[in-house]
């Protein structure tokens, strides 16, 4: 492929829900800007990120997880413009990939996670939990591809995407893609797109909680799933607070 052919359009699978106007402004150097991470055998590395600003952002990360190593990534994606986080992971024997992602925001921005997890060797596991909360005309996406190589037996891969749309104009998209060439494999995918639980909202109101407080508690409970794997440390609280602060900007 030539460098020019590499500029994606929304016809490309991995970019199908992307903001077409922003794609037109991408340049080969931006696309080539991959951050690479290598995790040595048996080691654990955690990356936490808060991404997004007033301008479009593209974050591309490639992680090689060696035998028995563990990669953890937790991301809040709350930009005011198109913000895309793309993660490519290669798992060696018995390695693990843990991903927790939250897209949250209003306006008309598209915020998305695109992951490709290559279970290249046996006994590797991966768990991805994505939560999206949107209002206005905003869009939240998760494209998760899982590849399981021919001899990657005892692979255990899990993806879970759930979105809450606080207003009618907001939307969410997800598309799992599984390419499985081994036979002794567990792959689970769950997805649900819905509204805030109206019964719970009334129950909370009946106990005296104003709508904005009830909404905050319900959204907090919802997005917290993405950070459960972090355990109860200050870092997960910080990510949660960052996500919830975005909600505070919502004029609902």
């Amino acid at each position, binding site marked *: 492929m030539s460098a020019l052919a590499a500029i994606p359009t929304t016809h490309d699978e991995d970019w199908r829900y992307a903001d077409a106007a922003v794609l037109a402004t991408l340049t080969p150097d931006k696309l080539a800007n991959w951050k690479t991470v290598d995790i040595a055998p048996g080691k654990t590395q955690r990356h936490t990120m808060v991404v997004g600003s007033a301008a479009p952002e593209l974050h591309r990360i490639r992680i090689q997880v060696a035998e028995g190593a563990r990669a953890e990534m937790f991301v809040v994606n709350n930009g005011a413009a198109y913000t895309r986080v793309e993660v490519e992971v290669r798992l060696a024997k018995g390695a693990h990939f843990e991903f927790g992602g939250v897209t949250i925001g209003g306006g008309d921005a598209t915020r998305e996670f695109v992951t490709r997890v290559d279970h290249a060797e046996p006994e590797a596991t991966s768990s991805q939990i994505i939560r999206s909360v949107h209002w206005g005309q905003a869009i939240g996406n998760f494209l998760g591809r899982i590849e399981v190589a021919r001899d990657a037996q005892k692979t255990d891969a899990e993806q879970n995407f759930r979105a809450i749309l606080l207003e009618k104009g907001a939307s969410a998209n997800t598309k799992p893609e599984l390419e499985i060439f081994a036979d002794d494999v567990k792959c689970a995918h769950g997805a649900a797109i819905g509204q805030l*639980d*109206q*019964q*719970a909202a*009334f*129950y*909370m*109101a*009946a*106990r*005296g*909680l*104003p*709508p904005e*407080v*009830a909404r905050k*508690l*319900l959204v*907090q*409970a*919802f997005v*917290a*799933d993405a950070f459960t794997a972090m355990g109860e440390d200050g870092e997960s609280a910080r990510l949660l607070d960052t996500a919830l602060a975005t909600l505070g900007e919502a004029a609902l």
Partner: protein
Amino acid sequence: MLKIENLHATVADKPILKGLSLTIKAGQIHAIMGPNGAGKSTLSYVLGGRPGYEVTQGSVTFDGQDLLALDPHERAAAGLFLGFQYPVEIPGVSNVQFLREAANSQRKQRGEAELSGGDFLKLAKEKAGLLRMDMEMLKRNVNVGFSGGEKKRAEMVQMGILDPKLAILDETDSGLDIDALRIVGDGINAIMRKPDKAVLLITHYQRLLDYVKPDVVHVLADGRIVKSGGPELALELEREGYEAVVA
């Protein structure tokens, strides 16, 4: 304390309450009985302000205020408590967090000082103790995984913490075992039997009324109060059934 006059309400455009009138004075306990589908829960939801329950006619005055003009959370802050027939589960939100936010939201709306974490826990412990509920239960998520009876008991702990003026308790007795029924009955008396408070008990059975003696018993049928009387009316209903008594 509560004055309902000629209340008409619809759910999904279907008339359910059809001219219901009821007055409850401070210090009183009223019971409402009535056949399934008569509109008892609908009445409680209409008073609580649940979306989808539309008042088409009539008025409700609570403590001198137009209740129907208030939002649901404002009604709670004004002192109205709804004990749900089916308490709602809220995954990911603990009872402690929920109730502390609720108590303090109400206080804030009333212009009162908020409770500190320590004061709240002390209050929660006291009320949980009153209902013989383990504090460990309050650390769990709201109603998630609670048995039917535990949910009802938790509702009463909530009531104790929030200390309302008027409690409308929709079948709080259903799902309770024999001992729990007595504990909940005692709890209702301890929390609500005061000169400046009132209770509206919605129930199908006399057994709760053995513990929480009503001053007035009403029969609600087809969206209206069709008969009112003293505590003996509940016994009569239990003996003879609605058809015989109401006819």
